[in-house]
């Protein structure tokens, strides 16, 4: 494979949880991805601008403080407007307030046209496995 697949990674909204993000950065990099890590408190526009300029294959959003649903609203629409409507959108973490059934949460985010949604405590290898599948990496190899 001549070029690494690129993912834009960050914590969305007013969320400052940096530790999980470092673990994700490390895991994705180890798995052979090129990671563009935008850090914490990243806005939708920053994710999208970074993805455009770097020609990224996926945007991976982390959120831990419970407001992820509000922060992620309209993300796909903005991607479409910016000309990267087809980009893979992943979101994971503690993305809603309180204890809710994950299948309901997942459905709400899939309705917002996110491609994959991950519950709290997901092992990074899970995300990597899905990325490899969605980006058809194993077929190419």
């Amino acid at each position: 494979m001549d070029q690494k697949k690129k993912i834009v990674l960050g914590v969305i909204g007013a969320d400052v949880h940096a530790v999980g993000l470092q673990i994700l950065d490390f895991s994705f990099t180890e798995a052979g991805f090129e990671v563009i890590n935008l850090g914490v408190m990243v806005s939708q526009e920053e994710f999208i601008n970074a993805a455009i300029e770097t020609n990224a294959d996926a945007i991976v959003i982390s959120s831990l403080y419970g407001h992820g649903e509000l922060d992620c609203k309209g993300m796909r629409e903005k991607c479409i407007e910016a000309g990267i409507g087809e980009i893979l959108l992943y979101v994971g973490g503690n993305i809603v307030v309180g204890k809710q059934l994950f299948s309901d949460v997942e459905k709400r985010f899939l309705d917002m046209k996110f491609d994959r949604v991950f519950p709290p405590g997901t092992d990074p290898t899970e995300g990597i496995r899905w990325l490899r599948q969605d980006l058809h990496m194993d077929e190419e190899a």
Partner: protein
Amino acid sequence: MKVYLLADFGSTYTKLTAVDLELSHILATTQCPTTVKTDIAEGLNHATAEIENQIGKFEIEALHACSSAAGGLRMVVSGLVEELTAEAARVAALGAGARVIRVFSNKMTKGDVRELETIQPDLFLLTGGTDGGDEQCILANAATVAKLNLTCPILIAGNCQATDECFEILSAAGKESRICPNVLPKLGTLNIQPVQEEIRALFLKRIIQAKGLSRVTRLLDDIMMPTPVAVLKALTLLAHGTDKECGIGPLMAVDLGGATCDVYSISAGSPKESNTVMRGLPEPEAKRTVEGDIGMRINAYGVVEAAGGLERLTAMSGVSMQETTDLLSQFSKNPSVLPETAAMEQLDKALASLALEVSTIRHAGTISEAYTPAGLMYIQEGKDLRDIRQLLFIGGTLIRTRYPQAIAECCRYSPARPESLRPEQFDLYLDKRYILSAMGVLSEIHPNEALRLMKKEICFE
């Protein structure tokens, strides 16, 4: 007596500084009208004669120069995302002393193309995509530019995987182009120095000929740079010092002219607190901004518009509305008018104060509050200049005025605008004899002497 001569070819005046290096002393400074329409050497000869009048006959040890004559270095830049590569390209061009006439982002439209052909810049900077990132935009823009009636050289400093192809497209169309390292190789990594060096090389090669300066180059020794670069070099040296002598530390400088206002800062401007998150493109430690709508004469109305209207200006100056309107009209039509009456002087003071307020706010970084579950956090964009302790006024109105301290107050951090990260406490220094550009040129060969001269002349050390 052996004398170093340093010339600054401006659009209106040719300034000349005579230096005795051994004694670390500025012998004389003078200015004569620039004669770019006939032979630029004429103005230089007049200035040299004028220096001789002041200090007597002398032997010239070396003659070096910088120039912003005939409109300076006019550049147009293009990038992909407005806040990312297009901004990186703009910052690179400004730091290289250019006048950035227009910034294009995304693929250029037919309207953009018409505009570019009308502008006919001295240099076009083509960027877009991080290394390994987007290729489509820069390739499309290269193809667009290749078809244009454009004679200027083109610098390619975008995604390294697309630059060879851009070069081929442009060369095939007979355009002179050069490849440089990407201005934004990775998101969050600005790499503007290589492109700035190339801009300077092209400035030497093409611009000087085009601007009627070639005839003096025989007289000059090999150093030549755009004037703003010389000023930026001088300020950087003054702030940092050399291996042998310490500098004065982080500083901000302002040059307010009739049509534009240049602001410089030499400071890392990093966040002060751990609960501050940086946003946006990183900014260079030695940063220059130019406000094209802010000036004391041609752009007097620009100041009024940007600073909040005529009422604010009249309240500040104490000059009546009627007289203010008349004077502003006079100022904007006649760039060379100097303040003669008390009313003119008061209006100039108010105009300069507002011009500096607007320009320094645009130059400095900003901070905003964000309430998060982890408590109060701050988001910083651009540089935090609150710790800067030195402010320099360069040239023009700011040197002539009787109220430099009062005007400088408008550059200060203000509780009324807590978001603008401008210097909190500073000492004001005046470059009374306009030696900064000369010292920038001199610093290329004799940095220690240039530093000592600046400290002596400007900081009275």
